[in-house]
């Protein structure tokens, strides 16, 4: 307890109220000096219904919005800014695969307002009636003309806009060059798998979902990343089963093991590579020269979203160029919005991890929708993991 009397006198309160009414002080100053701000915050914490409902730009959108997304994919400060602006707190659920997100939405009752599907998953969500076209009047920050159609195009299905481009990237490999001991850095998927079954035995990680793990095994033989051909898949399975005893782990969250030095090489997305390379320069990123995956991620809103207003407001906020630029600086993935790219420092725009050379990009394939639902690929992956 202090002796200082920190409540405000009646006279002073009226003076402050007049100043606030005249507009000579801000609302924040008024709430601060009078102690009303602190008092209502304490009350609000105890009684949610008493939370102040100021007239936010987006109108009243409720006090909560649930986002299902990927690991290391957003700057938490941007969520705080959204909450400060709209009054809706962002609850984040993290997932490691499109399959898992699809399974949750198929089962129903996910409670998600916004989620982040990858290009090849969107048409399945539309066909299954899981997502609705977006109400674009509520997303004024989106400007279709400024987005690169290569990356934003998959959001449109049958002429309707279902999903908005978040960012894009490649799936290559991250290699800890300190552990090479004079060996050359692998440059292809062939070398990736041979290293795994050779000098890097016990130190390699692959993703915990079918598209890239099977896709990059198919690349070993020079097949298409998206192949559904039973003979080609059988070859990929043979390779995966032979490599499994040599793996360090099957996990889409590979940063902790790579950073600790337990794993030396992993199948890796652009952003994870730039995050790791930023802190540990010996971890380098390689796009397999036979090809591999190029992808783009999107914001979409499920039909079942409990807070659709807040969902649109959150997407609108995150796609506001200034905010999206902050997001990009945090997650380290390239963004398809030209307005955002203008705000980013040139060293990011010239970073070879984010923007691989054109001849490497040209060999990459976008994931095909059929791979997501193909029973043979799903069962192959499940067998591989259960072996």
């Amino acid at each position, binding site marked *: 307890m202090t002796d200082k009397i920190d409540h405000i006198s009646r006279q002073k309160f009226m003076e402050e109220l007049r100043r606030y009414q005249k507009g000579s002080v801000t609302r924040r100053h008024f709430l601060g000096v009078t102690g009303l701000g602190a008092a209502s915050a304490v009350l609000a914490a105890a009684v949610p219904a008493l939370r102040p409902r100021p007239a936010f730009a987006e109108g009243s959108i409720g006090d909560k919005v649930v986002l299902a997304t990927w690991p290391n994919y957003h700057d938490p400060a941007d969520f705080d800014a959204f909450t400060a602006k709209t009054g809706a707190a962002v609850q984040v659920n993290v997932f490691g*695969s499109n399959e898992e997100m*699809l399974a949750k939405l*198929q089962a129903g009752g996910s409670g998600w307002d916004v989620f982040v599907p990858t290009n090849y998953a969107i048409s399945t969500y539309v066909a*299954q009636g899981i997502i609705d076209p977006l109400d674009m009047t509520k997303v004024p920050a989106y400007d279709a003309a400024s987005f690169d159609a290569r990356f934003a195009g998959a959001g449109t299905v049958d002429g309707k806009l279902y999903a908005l481009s978040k960012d894009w990237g490649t799936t290559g490999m991250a290699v800890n060059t300190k552990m090479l001991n004079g060996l050359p850095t692998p440059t292809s998927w062939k070398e990736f798998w041979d290293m795994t079954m050779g000098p890097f035995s016990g130190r390699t990680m692959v993703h915990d979902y079918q598209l890239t793990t099977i896709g990059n095994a198919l690349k070993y033989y020079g097949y298409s990343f998206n192949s559904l051909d039973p003979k080609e898949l059988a070859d990929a399975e043979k390779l995966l089963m032979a490599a499994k005893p040599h793996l360090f782990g*099957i*996990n889409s969250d590979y940063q*902790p093991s790579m950073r600790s030095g337990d794993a030396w090489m992993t199948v890796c997305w652009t952003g994870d590579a730039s995050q790791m390379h930023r802190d540990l320069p010996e971890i380098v990123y390689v796009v397999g020269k036979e090809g591999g995956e190029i992808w783009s991620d999107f914001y979409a809103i499920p039909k079942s979203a409990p807070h659709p207003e807040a969902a649109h407001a959150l997407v609108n906020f995150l796609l506001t160029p200034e905010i999206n630029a902050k997001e990009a600086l945090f997650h380290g993935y390239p963004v398809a919005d030209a307005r955002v790219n203008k705000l980013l420092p040139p060293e990011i725009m010239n970073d070879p991890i984010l923007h691989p050379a054109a001849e490497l990009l040209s060999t990459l394939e976008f994931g095909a929708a059929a791979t997501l639902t193909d*029973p043979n690929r799903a069962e192959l992956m*499940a067998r591989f993991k259960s072996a």
Partner: protein
Amino acid sequence: MQGRTTWLLLAPAALWFGIMLVLPLCFIVVFSFGDRGPAGGYVPAFTLAQYANLPSRFAVFRNTLTLAPLGTLMALVIAYPLAYFLALQASPRWRTLLLILVIVPFWTSILIRSYAWIFLLGGQGIPALFAWAGIPLPRLVNTPFAVLTGIVYGYLPLMVLPIYVSLDRLDKRLLEASADLGAPPFRSFLQITLPLSLPGVATGCMLVFILLMGEYLIPSVLGGGLVFFIGNALVDLFLQSRNWAFGAAVSVSLVVIMLITVSAYMWLMRRLGGARDDVSLM
């Protein structure tokens, strides 16, 4: 009057079990005869194809059926001397403190404690200590050894407590009588303490074994996706490859395996005579 009281007493549990156990189990059985939907999930059918596909999951059944009994056995070997010390050797003042220490790990989530093991077993943990002493260790994380360490660590308290209770209830006068009649301590242990503590051993083993058979979390954290239990294969089938019908068939097999092993175990315990009428499952 009597009947009504009985019903009132049983109603909450019956309702709970009916809704939370029997109903989902019925769904699982029905699903297990169905098929995978075109985009995953379940479509009604009547086929035995899912059961015919079970051999493809041989490895997960093998992992579970070796690591669960092995983990139970190791927990028993570690827990028995500890429980013996707590019940028969420790002074009452220390006993309370030590018992609290046995329970303390439950105050933190098993998930967080399992993550801690990743660091302990990882290259910068215990192996680094050994390497410093000049003894290179093979990789420990993401191996069956790591999973075994994790499950023994995680379930040890559940083994200690029932054994402690049975040893604590042991009539100490029997040990005095045995000593008076000239039996050396080891013989008293074999003929009095051990047989009388068997109900606690049986309870502890049953408790740990049943939980281990359904274990998912520790293999998924410490196995790195390489050491699958049946539980991990199930999560994978329901959430990743979305083959609910096959997942259901694997679930039903797990239930059947549990019924068989647990019944066999109880029968064996009765046959051994160590487990008398007061064998309790909890």
